[in-house]
């Protein structure tokens, strides 16, 4: 019984951990810890947005990092034109990634299964090569953000802790928003379309419209992640949107346990922190991390969340 309580408390534990990290970090290498955990939270946002379409809608997007990149470039391009207002940048990042999601999603959703995986990859790669060829904004090398971000004329994000809590609030907000979406009628239709699209159609829902809406929501949220990533690294580059990045996002969601939202947070945290810790132990950390992923796939059905749930004795 105690185990199952712990499982249900997992989302709360995760958020408490992220909330108190700055307080604990001051006893260690504060700058390093904060920047690591900020990266975890940003990728948690991206992974949760992927989980909405992948876990609840069975739409495996292999081009999801494109939204991260588009959001980041929304910041980078505006900054290079001296638009330092973060709200304007946020609107641009969200609008651009939502628009990209709408156009590509409308075409991608004509296909199913692995064909969907590959067509999303195709659009992701097109976005990647587009920014690589964009010589004005750094091309291959990317863009360093030199201007100071402001909000109505006052500089923001200069204090790392402020940025940290902005990212934390964004992650919490995204989690609550997605929870609400998943629990709503919209979310039920989405899950229904995952289980049996024909039946959904028979009872009067058009799965295509719901799936497209979910795809656009996921793209827009991932764009927020890109916005935050640009401000956290003060750098924007096509490397944010390689297919390897998209693959890593999928791995984070599956590793944590798909279709649970907090699993995506756990997966992002496990992926990034394990990568960081192992890389400090040995240069050949992939020799350990690779087999770890294999073992999770073989023995922990439902990812880490599924594993914890079974430890807690619930089926």
């Amino acid at each position: 019984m105690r185990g199952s309580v712990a499982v249900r408390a997992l989302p709360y534990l995760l958020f408490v951990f992220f909330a108190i990290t700055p307080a604990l970090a001051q006893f260690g290498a504060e700058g390093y810890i904060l920047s690591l955990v900020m990266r975890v939270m940003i990728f948690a946002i991206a992974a949760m947005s992927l989980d909405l379409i992948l876990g609840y809608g069975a739409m495996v997007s292999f081009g999801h990092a494109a939204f991260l990149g588009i959001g980041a470039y929304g910041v980078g391009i505006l900054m290079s034109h001296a638009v330092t207002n973060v709200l304007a940048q946020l609107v641009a990042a969200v609008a651009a990634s939502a628009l990209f999601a709408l156009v590509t999603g409308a075409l991608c959703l004509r296909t199913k299964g692995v064909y969907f995986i590959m067509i999303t990859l195709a659009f992701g790669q097109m976005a990647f090569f587009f920014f690589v060829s964009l010589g004005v904004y750094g091309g291959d090398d990317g863009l360093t953000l030199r201007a100071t971000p402001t909000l109505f004329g006052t500089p923001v994000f200069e204090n790392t802790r402020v940025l940290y809590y902005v990212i934390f609030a964004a992650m919490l907000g995204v989690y609550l928003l997605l929870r609400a979406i998943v629990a709503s009628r919209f979310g039920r239709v989405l899950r229904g379309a995952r289980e049996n699209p024909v039946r959904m159609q028979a009872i009067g829902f058009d799965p295509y419209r719901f799936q497209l809406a979910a795809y656009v929501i996921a793209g827009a949220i991932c764009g927020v992640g890109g916005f935050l990533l640009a401000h956290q690294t003060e750098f924007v580059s096509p490397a944010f949107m390689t297919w390897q990045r998209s693959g890593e996002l999928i791995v984070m969601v599956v590793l944590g346990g798909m279709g649970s939202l907090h699993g995506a947070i756990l997966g992002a945290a496990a992926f990034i922190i394990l990568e960081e810790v192992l890389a400090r132990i040995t240069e050949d950390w992939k020799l350990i991390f690779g087999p770890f992923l294999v073992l999770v796939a073989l023995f922990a059905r439902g990812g880490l969340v599924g594993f914890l749930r079974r430890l807690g004795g619930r089926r």
Partner: protein
Amino acid sequence: MYATLILVQTLNGLQLGIILFLIAAGLTLVFGVMDFINLAHGVQYMLGAYFAYEFTTLTGSFTLGLLMALPAALLAGLVLEAFIFRHLYDRDHLEQVLATFGVILFLNQGVKVVWGASPLFVPVPDWLQGSIEILPGFFYPIYRLAIIAAGLGVAALLYFLVNHTRAGMLVRAGASNATMVAALGVDIRFLFMIVFGFGAMLAGFAGAMVAPILSVEPGMGDNLLILAFVVIVIGGIGSIRGAFIAALLIGLVDTLGRGFSTDLLRLVMDPSAASQTGRAIAPMLTYILMALVLVFRPSGLFPVKK
């Protein structure tokens, strides 16, 4: 002059297409027959190249090295199948992705540990060195022609095996309905193992063949894996014929696109805009092609009937 350039690029495109076909053939069978997404197929190609390097340096002969690399690649594939992949056939696609992604990480780092991170070079065998005059005043490296010939030979062999042998019949049956094949009393596990091992060996063969013209390095299979997935999706999953046609198509489009898109755009744009757009369009072409095919034929060009 320009005509020769087009001819050279066409042959280069064919050669890339042949290599892609060797990788895609195994991938499409494994996917079509076992419904298994094997991201580790690209590292099997890489292993083939490393085996070829190792055995060539060991024996001093590329031919012997190639002959020894084939069973080694087969063995590596069977070991992976027996210890990891076999347990994932009836799982969710995404768990297969997770596991095979882990295998990629491990093997890419593994070859770095064993052979070092710097690129290795395999000499072109003596008897295939030099160039041959195909047309008056037009020379092409013999080794690249040999790759094309070997690839076409393998394609013909595959065609025969799949269409005119009992094992091939079972493979085709498995691609359209594996459960039914098992129900009819065929040892499906053994069939899966054979298909998997054969696919791994084909990928290893591709890796060994390109070892003398490309540098052998960790991660060399990653981008080719993605292109091979593009090929099997355009061709229709499970279809060898589709994989063959799509592989040649992708090889030609990619090579010719990189070679000539700027020149073509220059006909309608001013030079600087053409070179900017050309650089952007060329690497996108294969993906644009795939997106177009999937928008109009959502199951590829040659879908296997289910």
